[in-house]
């Protein structure tokens, strides 16, 4: 890495500086678009006491479930965690602190964190348990709650392609939470399927500009499917 070249060649280098107790954002929706190899590297490094911000918590043996297996996560912000029995056990036993957050509020809290907005009002969750302890306000006859933004020490991102300057393109719905999280990490690490030279991506088609990206690494991916639904030909 020098100048604007963000490419690193080992996963150890990609996660250099990630230590116990840090707050991480982890991209993906379900198992789609998750940074698979960055997660397994964290498992192998054995970093603990992590706070994870991720829409889901993987399944028992894939995605963030791998870190739950080794009790590496102490707190998680997520919107839906229903696919994971281990998660349930750790939550009920109190080993794992869970902050359930509506999906759109979670997405917006992360986007706000990256955009320098410390808090915003939203109607989502007003009058529900999510509003407990939060400031509320009536604006033009509707009720809203104040939601603070989220940032992280590291954002762990999966994209389809990157150029060497860290400009990113996502593929299909594997985009999901990745673009906002890429803006909200102090250090943003991206694993991709292909790295191209700077200038090869059309400037109109770049989903995440390289300014948000610190490190890029090329990986290979299992891409496990949670619900394989098909129709007959």
């Amino acid at each position, binding site marked *: 890495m020098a100048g604007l070249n963000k490419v690193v060649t080992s996963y150890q280098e990609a996660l250099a500086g990630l230590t116990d107790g840090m707050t991480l954002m982890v991209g993906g929706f379900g198992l789609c678009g998750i940074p698979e190899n960055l997660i397994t590297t964290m498992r192998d490094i054995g970093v603990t006491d992590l706070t994870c911000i991720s829409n889901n918590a993987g399944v028992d043996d894939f995605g963030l479930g791998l870190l739950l297996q080794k009790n590496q996560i102490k707190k998680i912000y997520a919107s839906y965690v229903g696919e994971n029995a281990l998660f349930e056990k750790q939550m009920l036993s109190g080993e794992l602190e869970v902050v359930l957050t509506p999906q759109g509020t979670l997405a917006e809290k992360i986007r706000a964190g990256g955009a320098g907005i410390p808090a915003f009002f939203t109607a989502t969750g007003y009058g529900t348990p999510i509003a407990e302890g939060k400031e509320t306000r009536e604006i033009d006859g509707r009720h809203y709650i104040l939601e603070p933004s989220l940032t992280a020490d590291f954002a762990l991102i999966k994209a389809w392609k990157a150029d060497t300057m860290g400009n990113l393109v996502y593929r299909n719905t594997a985009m999901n939470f990745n673009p906002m999280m890429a803006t909200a990490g102090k250090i943003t690490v991206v694993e991709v399927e292909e790295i191209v030279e700077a200038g090869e991506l059309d400037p109109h088609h770049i989903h995440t500009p390289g300014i948000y990206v610190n490190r890029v690494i090329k990986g290979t991916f299992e891409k496990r*499917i949670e619900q394989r639904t098909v129709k007959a030909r």
Partner: protein
Amino acid sequence: MAVSREQIAQRIAQELKDGYYVNLGIGIPTLVANYIPEGIEVMLQSENGLLGMGEFPTEENVDADLINAGKQTVTMAKGASLFSSAESFAMIRGGHVDLTVLGAFEVDVSGNIASWMIPGKLIKGMGGAMDLVAGAENIVVTMMHADKKGNSKILDACTLPLTGAQCIKKVVTDLAVLEIKDGAFHLLERAPGVSVEEIIEKTAGKLILPDVVPVMKL
């Protein structure tokens, strides 16, 4: 006789209008896509980041990178667009979705809905449901009128933690179509073969009856 899940979906499909952008929740709402009336065009929104959801893929076209909000593999319809979850919920929260269909455990006369949490049982999380009910002007809730023991889920006040407050105006159950207004359920239609008496019996919340109760057309 109560209508089936498929028939509930069929009835809800009649709420679709030409040119609508629609978000269909998991469960019965997903089935609505099978009953889009002939001659109208609608676009299905999937809150993970897809506008223009198509049908399920053939085995050869399964793509791990292309799923819907229920995490099922899907395809894209003609004119589809892809975007982040932040953009997706900007659409939802900003009221750009014309119709949202989602399931519920309970609804009440104030338009409150409970659909995400049963205390003491596993808490799976609300996913996008709270955003959907807060953002949509036009929501249809699909649910069973009563539980298996016959206890009404159409209440004066929800007993479970809410998903949203004062946001539901229309409910389609296995027994009836109800409108919520002025602090009561208004019976709009009954399921074929279901008596008004059965609906009265299984509706715990205040119920207003019209002079004539039409039968759901399916």
